[in-house]
C-alpha cells in the first residue's frame, strides 16, 4: 500500500492554549498537515475527508482528544489507517498551559498586554506524542477483517431451567439451538421441586415450578433440537466452526455448532460429609433440603424414622456452607429454600412449627419481599445461632442445642425432623478435589503447580474440548468456570463458550432464567462479531488479529502455553496453529515470542519500537529526563484520561505509550529504549494475582513474570534493575495516578541519568 499521510491537529478544547500549533505543524515534516480550531465539527471533519478525496490521503493522524471519545466522528472504515494522538487529555488538560510572564520587578507596565508564553515541557510532550503517532501511522497497515461464513447454531449443554431458557432465548431471535441433556428428561432440579420461589413482582408468593412449562415450549420449538441421555464427547474447532460429537443413547451424532452455552448446573453439597457435624446418615430424622422438596412433591413431609407427619421441623442454615471445612462460600438460595420449606411444613398442619437457625439470613435483592412474607407466619421461628449438638431423644425425636442465639442464651429445641440446608456445588468443580481445596487460581499457582509436578485441576468433564491447554474451561475459585465474575459475566476463559445459571454462580430459578438470556445473547453476539472478522469481548470491533511469520518460528511453544484463552493449537512439532475466532487480540503471544514473529496490522514489535524511537531523549537536561510509560489500554489509560478530565497533572518527564495489555509487552522494547538512553520504563497495568482485574485474565501477571527476563537484560546492560517497574492501577484510582507516576520519576531521578544517554 502506498501511504499518503495526512496529519490533522485540533486546537479546540484548550489544546491551542497548551501547545504552539505552528511548532506542532513542523513536526509533521513533509506530510500534509493542517490545523483546525474545531476538528470534530462539520468543517473540521470535511477538512480531512476532502483531503482523502482530493489529495489521496489514506493514512490519517488525528492529534486531538483521547481515542476513547469521538470515535464515531473520526471513523474512515477499515481501508484507511487511522491513528489518534491524545494531546487533549494527556497534554492540554494535564500539563501547564501557556502563561503570561510576570513583569520584571520595577519594570513599567507595558502598554499592551504581553502574549502568553507556551510552557517548554508541555510543548516537548505534545511534539513527542505527535512524532510517536506519525511513526506509528507510517508502520500501520489497514486491517483486513477475516470475514467468514460461520455456523451460527448455539449449542446449550444442560437441560435444566437455564439450559431450556437459553435455547428458547436463542431460538426466539432466530438462531438454531441444540440442547444436550444428560438425563432422560428435560427439567433439571426445577422439575424435582414442589414449588419454586417467586420469579415475578412482588416476589412474595410461591409458584408452581416452571420446568414443565419450559420443557413444553422447547419441545414445540422446531428451531431447537434436543438430545436426551446425551453428553458432549468431543468438541473440535473454534467459535463459528465447532465440530461436536454428541453421544445420545449410545449413538454418536455429529453436529456443527458456532458457540456454546454451558448450563450444566449444580449438585447439592454431599451431606454425608456432614455426618460428624450434624449427624446426617447417623440420625434417621436428619435430612437434606432436597429430600424435603421430594417429600413435599410426593404429598407430605414425613419423618423417615416412622413416617409420622413432621410437625416440629428445624432447619439448619449454612449446613456445610460458609464453612472452611466444607463449602467456603454462600450459595445465596438456601435461606430462601428453607423459608419456602417452612411454609410447606406450616401448610401441612396449623399447629406445626418451623424453626430456622441461621448464620445470617441472606435473601438477595427483591427476595427480601419473600423473606418478609414467609417470616410473617406466627409458626415460623427465626434466630441466628450455632448448632452445638443434635441428639436423639427417643421415638426418633431430636433435641437440638443451639448457642449464641438472638434470644440471649443457649437454647434447646425439640424437633421431629432436622433439615440441613446444604449449598450448591457447580458441576464444573474439578473431580476428586474438595471445594475447600480449590482457592482462587492464578498464573503463579500454575507455575508453582507445574514446578512441583502437581496436576492443575481441570473442570469436570463437560465439553471435551480439543484444545492445546486442556479439554475443559479453566475454573477459578471453588470450581466456578468464570473469567472475571463482576466485570465479565457469562465469559469463561475460552472464547465463544459462555457459562450460565448455577454453574456460573449459585442462584435460584428467577436469576437462572435471566442468566440464560444473558448468556444466549453473549453467544449470539460472539458469533455475529466473529463472522464479521471482529474480536469479541473486551476488544469488540477490533478487526485486526495476530499473524504469525511461521518461517521464523523455533517451536518454543511459549505462545501456545501463555495464551490465556488457549487460542493456539500446535502441530506435532509444536508450531502454533492460529484459531482467530478463539482469539481476543490481547497480544500476549506477541509479548511472549522471542523470535518476534507475531504481529497485528496496527500493533507489532516493530510499530511500538518505532514509537519509542520517535521519542526525543534530551541528553543534557536534568529537568527533562525521559521515561516511557507503557500503559494498558483497558484500565490505566482510561485512568489517565480521567486524570486529565479532572485537570490533575502528571510528571512531564513521562511519555505515555498505550499497549493492548501488559502481557503484550515484548522485552525487546525495553532493551531498545534503554540502549537509546531512555532513563526508565514504567509499565502501568491491571491488578494481578488473586482478585485480578486484568481484562485478559493473566496478561499483567504474565508481564510481571517476564520481569525475570527484563532483569537479565538490565544486568547485561549494567543498569539498575529499578529502571524498569510495573505498577497496578484501576480506572477508579485516577486520582492516585499522579502520585504513583511522580514517585517513579523521583526515585529514578535520584538514581541519576541512564549512562547510555547521548551515545
Amino acid at each position, binding site marked *: 500500500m502506498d501511504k499518503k499521510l495526512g496529519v490533522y491537529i485540533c486546537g479546540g478544547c484548550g489544546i491551542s492554549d497548551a501547545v504552539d500549533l505552528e511548532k506542532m505543524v513542523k513536526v509533521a515534516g513533509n506530510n500534509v498537515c493542517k490545523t483546525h480550531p474545531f476538528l470534530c465539527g462539520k468543517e473540521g471533519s470535511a477538512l480531512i475527508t476532502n483531503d482523502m478525496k482530493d489529495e489521496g490521503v489514506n493514512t490519517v493522524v488525528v492529534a486531538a482528544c483521547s481515542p476513547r471519545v469521538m470515535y464515531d466522528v473520526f471513523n474512515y472504515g477499515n481501508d484507511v489507517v487511522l491513528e489518534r494522538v491524545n494531546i487533549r487529555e494527556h497534554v492540554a488538560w494535564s500539563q501547564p498551559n501557556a502563561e503570561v510572564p510576570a513583569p520584571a520587578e520595577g519594570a513599567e507596565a507595558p502598554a499592551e498586554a504581553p502574549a502568553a508564553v507556551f510552557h517548554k515541557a508541555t510543548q516537548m510532550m505534545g511534539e513527542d506524542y505527535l512524532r510517536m503517532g506519525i511513526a506509528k501511522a507510517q508502520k500501520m497497515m489497514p486491517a483486513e477483517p477475516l470475514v467468514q461464513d460461520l455456523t451460527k447454531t448455539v449449542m446449550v449443554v444442560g437441560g435444566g431451567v437455564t439450559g431450556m431458557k437459553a435455547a428458547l432465548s436463542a431460538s426466539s431471535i432466530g438462531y438454531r439451538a441444540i440442547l444436550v441433556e444428560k438425563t432422560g428428561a428435560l427439567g433439571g432440579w426445577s422439575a424435582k421441586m414442589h414449588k419454586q420461589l417467586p420469579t415475578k413482582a412482588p416476589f412474595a408468593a410461591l409458584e408452581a415450578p416452571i420446568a414443565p412449562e419450559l420443557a413444553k415450549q422447547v419441545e414445540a420449538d422446531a428451531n431447537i433440537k434436543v438430545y436426551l441421555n446425551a453428553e458432549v464427547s468431543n468438541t473440535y474447532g473454534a467459535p463459528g466452526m465447532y465440530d461436536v460429537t454428541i453421544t445420545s443413547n449410545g449413538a454418536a451424532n455429529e453436529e456443527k455448532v458456532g458457540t456454546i452455552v454451558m448450563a450444566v448446573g449444580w449438585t447439592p453439597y454431599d451431606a454425608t460429609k456432614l455426618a460428624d457435624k450434624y449427624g446426617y446418615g447417623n440420625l434417621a430424622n436428619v435430612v437434606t433440603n432436597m429430600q424435603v422438596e421430594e417429600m413435599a412433591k410426593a404429598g407430605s413431609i414425613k419423618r423417615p424414622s416412622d413416617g409420622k407427619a413432621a410437625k416440629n421441623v428445624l432447619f439448619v442454615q449454612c449446613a456445610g456452607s460458609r464453612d472452611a471445612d466444607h463449602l467456603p462460600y454462600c450459595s445465596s438460595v438456601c435461606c430462601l429454600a428453607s423459608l419456602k420449606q417452612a411454609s410447606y411444613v406450616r401448610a401441612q398442619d396449623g399447629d406445626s*412449627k418451623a424453626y430456622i437457625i441461621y448464620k445470617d439470613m441472606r435473601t438477595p435483592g427483591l427476595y427480601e419481599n419473600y423473606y*418478609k412474607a414467609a*417470616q410473617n*407466619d*406466627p409458626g415460623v421461628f427465626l434466630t441466628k445461632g450455632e448448632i452445638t449438638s443434635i441428639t436423639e431423644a427417643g421415638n426418633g425425636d431430636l433435641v437440638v442445642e443451639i448457642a449464641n442465639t438472638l434470644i440471649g442464651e*443457649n437454647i*434447646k*429445641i425439640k424437633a421431629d425432623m432436622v433439615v440441613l440446608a446444604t449449598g450448591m456445588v457447580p458441576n464444573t468443580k474439578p473431580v476428586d478435589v474438595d471445594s475447600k481445596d480449590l482457592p482462587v487460581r492464578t498464573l503463579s499457582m500454575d507455575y508453582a503447580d507445574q514446578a512441583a509436578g502437581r496436576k492443575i485441576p481441570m473442570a469436570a468433564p463437560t465439553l471435551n474440548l480439543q484444545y492445546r491447554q486442556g479439554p475443559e474451561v479453566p475454573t477459578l475459585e471453588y470450581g466456578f468456570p468464570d473469567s472475571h465474575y463482576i466485570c465479565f459475566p457469562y465469559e469463561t476463559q475460552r472464547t465463544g463458550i459462555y457459562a450460565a445459571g448455577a454453574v456460573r454462580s449459585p442462584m435460584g430459578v428467577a436469576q437462572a432464567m435471566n442468566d440464560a438470556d444473558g448468556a444466549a445473547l453473549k453467544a449470539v453476539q460472539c458469533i455475529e462479531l466473529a463472522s464479521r472478522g471482529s474480536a469479541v469481548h473486551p476488544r469488540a470491533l477490533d478487526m485486526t488479529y495476530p499473524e504469525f511469520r511461521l518461517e521464523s518460528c523455533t517451536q518454543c511453544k511459549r505462545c501456545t502455553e501463555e495464551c490465556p484463552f488457549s487460542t493456539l493449537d500446535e502441530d506435532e512439532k509444536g508450531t502454533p496453529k492460529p484459531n482467530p475466532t478463539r482469539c481476543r487480540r490481547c497480544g500476549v503471544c506477541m509479548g511472549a515470542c522471542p523470535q518476534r514473529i507475531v504481529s497485528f496490522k496496527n500493533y507489532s514489535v516493530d510499530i511500538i519500537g518505532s514509537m519509542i524511537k520517535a521519542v526525543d531523549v534530551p541528553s543534557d537536561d536534568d529537568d527533562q529526563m525521559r521515561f516511557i510509560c507503557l500503559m494498558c489500554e483497558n484500565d490505566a489509560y482510561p485512568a489517565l484520561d480521567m486524570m486529565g478530565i479532572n485537570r490533575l497533572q502528571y510528571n512531564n518527564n513521562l511519555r505515555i505509550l498505550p499497549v493492548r495489555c501488559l502481557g503484550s509487552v515484548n522485552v525487546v522494547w525495553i532493551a531498545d529504549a534503554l540502549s537509546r538512553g531512555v532513563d526508565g520504563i514504567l509499565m502501568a497495568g491491571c491488578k494481578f494475582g488473586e482478585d485480578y482485574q486484568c481484562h485478559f485474565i493473566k496478561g499483567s501477571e504474565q508481564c510481571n513474570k517476564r520481569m525475570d527476563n527484563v532483569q537479565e537484560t538490565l544486568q547485561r546492560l549494567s543498569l539498575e534493575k529499578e529502571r524498569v517497574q510495573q505498577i497496578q492501577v484501576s480506572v477508579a484510582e485516577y486520582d492516585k495516578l499522579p502520585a504513583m507516576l511522580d514517585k517513579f520519576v523521583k526515585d529514578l531521578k535520584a538514581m541519576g541519568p541512564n549512562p547510555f544517554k547521548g551515545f
Partner: protein
Amino acid sequence: MSDIMVEPDLNFIKGLTASGADTVKKCYQCATCSVVCNIAPEGGPFPRKEMVWAQWGLKDKLAADPDVWLCHNCGDCTKHCPRGAKPAEVLGALRKATIEKYAMIKPLAGIASSFAGSFVVAAIVIIGLLAAIGHLNVLANYHEVGEDGHVNIIFNNFLNTHYVDAVFMPLFMLAVLTAGYGVMKFWNDICDGAGLGKYTGRNALPSILPTLLQIMQHNVFSACGVNKDRKIPHLLALVSFILLFITTNWAVVYLYVLGWEPGSYSSLHNPLKWVGNIGAIMLLAGAFLLIRNRKAKEATQSSSAFDWNLLYLILLIGVTGFLAQVIRMAGIVPGAQVMYVLHLIFIAQLFIFAPYSKLAHLFYRTTAMVFAKHTGRDLKVA
C-alpha cells in the same frame, strides 16, 4: 449458661397479634430500635430482645422482663424500624399480656379491654347500691328549696355519702389489694429472672423514694424523641390524680375525723373544693391533650382499644364530675343527679379495673423502675 428448652406458644403469639402487635413477626433483629431508643439502659437494651422473644412466643420470659415496663412508649423505635415491625406497639401489647398474666381476678382482666363490658360491671355495682337504698328513680326530687327560692341540691340527700363511701372504700381496697397481688408476683418473677436472692437481693426499699421522685420529675418523658410533647399532658393527668386523691382523703377527714355533715363542704368557699377543681381541670386538660396527641400520631403510631379505654374513661370522669358540679350549682335537679350517678359509675369502673386496665401501668411500671434503680440499670433521661 445452661440451655433452656424453648417451646414457642403459638396461641400467645396469636393473642399478641390480635391485641395490637400484628407487626411483631416483621422484625429481623437489626437492633435499630435499641440503638435509637433514647431511654433504654446500656446493658441489654430493649426492645430488640423483647421483639425476638415475642416472635418466639416466650411468654414466661416476657412476663418476668422489667424492660417491657421500662419502655415508656416514646415510639422512636417504631419511627426508625426499617421493617415496620413497630416495636413500641409490640411492647404495648406485651404490657397488656403481662397485666393479664398477673391479674388476680382473671374474668375482670378479660373484660378490661372492652369499654362497654367494664362500664356494665361498674354500673351494676352502682345501680345495686341505689337499689339497696331504694333510690332507683334518679329523677325524683331530693332537693331543698332555700328561703330565697334558690334550689339547693345536696347529693347526700339523694344518695347518702356514707353509702357511697361504704361502696367505694372497699372497691379502692380491692383495687389496691389485687394490684398488690400482681405486683408482688411480678416482683418475684423479675427477681428470679435476674437471679436475685431472697433477702438482700430483693430488698429494694431504698430505691423506692428515688424512683417516685424520678416519676414526679417526668424526665424520662423528656428523653423521648418523637413523643416528647406527651410529657406535660401525662404529668397533668398524674398530678390531677394525686390532687383528687388528696381531695378525697380531705373529705374523709371532714366526714369521719371532724364529723362534719355530708355536703357541708361542697360550697366553692371551701379550700377542699379549690384543690378538687384544680385537679379536675388538670384531669380534663391532661386527658384531652393525651387523646389529641394519640389521634395526631395515628398514622405512624397505632393505639389499641386498651389504650383508648383508659384515656376516654379519664376524660369521662372529668367531664361528668365537672358537669355534675355545674348542674348542681345551676339547680337543675334531674340532670345533676343523672350526671352524679354516671360520674360514680365511671369512677367505679376506674377502681374495679385499675389492676387490669391500662391504669395498671401505674403499679407495674413503678415496680419495674424501682427494680431498675435497685439493679443499677437506670433509664437514660434527658
